[in-house]
């Protein structure tokens, strides 16, 4: 009788790449729910658009290289990229924004490097940055939280808005953004930045419409939701605790120090940590295994580096929420970090 010959570890645990990616996607659910709750159905539509565009782009690229498209799609990596990108887009951004972002992310940032596991940059964030840089206007059209908006948007309204730019009753997006007392609304971080530049003290800003007891109204619960999702991931050992903790701790301490130095000149540490995309970035973007550092020490350095960059750009840079840029800049340094943070092997003196 002939025997099948195979190489040595014959057993295997049940956790496949597809389960890993799926788990990360599931961990985003609480975040998505809160975002939909606060910003309406736009988020869901953006998600659908982004994910379908990503999957389609991946399928085409894979077939170009004569490989089994179905198999690669099953590993859910395109789904995850689409999801992350969709979440970071403004809910009512026009439909072509999501499509361009995902296609760019999948084709140019991932497939060109050879597909899963070989891209140097985080596809979702690269896509987001390209969109932010090339379509600044439509990317900063963040709708204020639903409670504040005078005109309640129905589902058909959102779809009409996204696909035609005008709601059912003819209001343009800009008009809709007007809130009760007339001036346009922006994200907490954006308000802080613009206010700080025209010398308003931080305490005055806090009294503004957007904030309630020290935190952005909608954004604080969204960040909380992502924090919950992230902690579940860490407990499941899908992502290592090193990157998120390093990132959040550094961000917190840095902003805390500056806040002490000039309480009026900068936002409080808590606001930094719980607003914008900090939590979302820390647990879902930075820990993307492919583009992050792989060594234990390297992960900590990677987290710290990203936090420093976010802090720099937020306080002095031109963009209000710089998680995307910080991630890309940190990704650039990953090969170098991995090169110098080899762990000490058994039986060797130095690393």
């Amino acid at each position, binding site marked *: 009788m002939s025997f099948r010959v195979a190489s040595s570890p014959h057993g295997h645990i049940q956790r496949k790449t597809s389960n890993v990616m799926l788990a990360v996607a599931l961990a985003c659910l609480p975040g998505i729910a809160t975002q939909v709750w606060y910003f309406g159905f736009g988020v869901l539509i953006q998600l659908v658009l982004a994910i379908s565009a990503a999957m389609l782009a991946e399928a085409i690229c894979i077939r170009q290289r004569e490989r089994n498209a179905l198999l690669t799609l099953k590993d859910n990596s395109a789904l995850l990229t689409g999801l992350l990108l969709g979440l970071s887009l403004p809910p009512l951004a026009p439909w072509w924004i999501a499509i361009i972002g995902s296609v760019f992310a999948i084709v140019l940032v991932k497939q*060109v490097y050879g597909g899963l596991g070989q891209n140097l940059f985080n596809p979702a964030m*690269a896509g987001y*940055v390209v969109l932010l840089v090339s379509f600044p206007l439509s990317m900063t059209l963040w709708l204020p939280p639903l409670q504040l908006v005078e005109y309640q948007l129905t589902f058909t309204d959102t779809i009409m808005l996204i696909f035609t730019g005008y709601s059912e009753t003819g209001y343009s997006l800009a008009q809709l953004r007007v809130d009760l007392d007339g001036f346009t609304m922006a994200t907490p971080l954006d308000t802080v930045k613009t206010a700080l530049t025209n010398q308003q003290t931080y305490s005055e800003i806090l009294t503004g419409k957007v904030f309630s007891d020290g935190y952005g109204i909608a954004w604080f619960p969204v960040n909380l939701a992502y924090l919950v999702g992230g902690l579940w991931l860490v407990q499941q050992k899908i992502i290592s605790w090193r990157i998120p903790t390093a990132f959040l701790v550094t961000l917190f301490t840095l902003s805390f120090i500056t806040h002490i130095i000039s309480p009026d000149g900068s936002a409080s540490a808590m606001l930094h940590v719980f607003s914008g995309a900090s939590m979302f970035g820390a647990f879902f973007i930075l820990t993307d295994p492919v583009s992050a550092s792989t060594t234990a020490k390297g992960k900590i350095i990677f987290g710290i580096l990203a936090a420093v960059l976010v802090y720099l750009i937020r306080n002095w840079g031109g963009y209000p929420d710089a998680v995307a840029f910080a991630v890309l800049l940190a990704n650039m340094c990953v090969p170098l970090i991995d*090169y110098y943070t080899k762990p000490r092997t058994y039986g060797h003196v130095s690393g």
Partner: protein
Amino acid sequence: MGVSGKVETAIGMSLATTFVLTIASIASYLLDQYILQPLALEFLRTLGFILVIAVVVQFTEMVVHKTSPALYRILGIFLPLITTNCAVLGVALLNLNEQHNLIESAIYGFSAALGFSLVLILFSAMRERLAAADIPQPFKGSAIAMVTAGLMSLAFLGFTGLIKP
């Protein structure tokens, strides 16, 4: 592009460039201050700077050739390239119209070189990792390097507005 294939060569190249840039900015400042200005020969400035830079590069090439033949053989053809590197001349000229004094222009030259080295080393570390990826055939080699450079510049866009003029 050619030298940024491996991290070692990139480090070698950045050290050489830093050395050249700092010395060149100091030399060009001295040249301008004490020779061109008094004789009112401002129009000779560019020519003089190129001369200075060429000499400094030649000098570094000899030093490298003597100190580490291995590095010299790998860097060989790229060392004279530094002269054609417009950053060097650019820094020298910028020093002038920013009216930097001696120390300022030295620091200016050095930090410009530091930036150049940082990008070069990061870029070479990335390319070294790309060497083993199964990149589709049309993108192999310099094509993928250009894409990476593009994405890097995209990332650096984040720094816009950092320095308030």
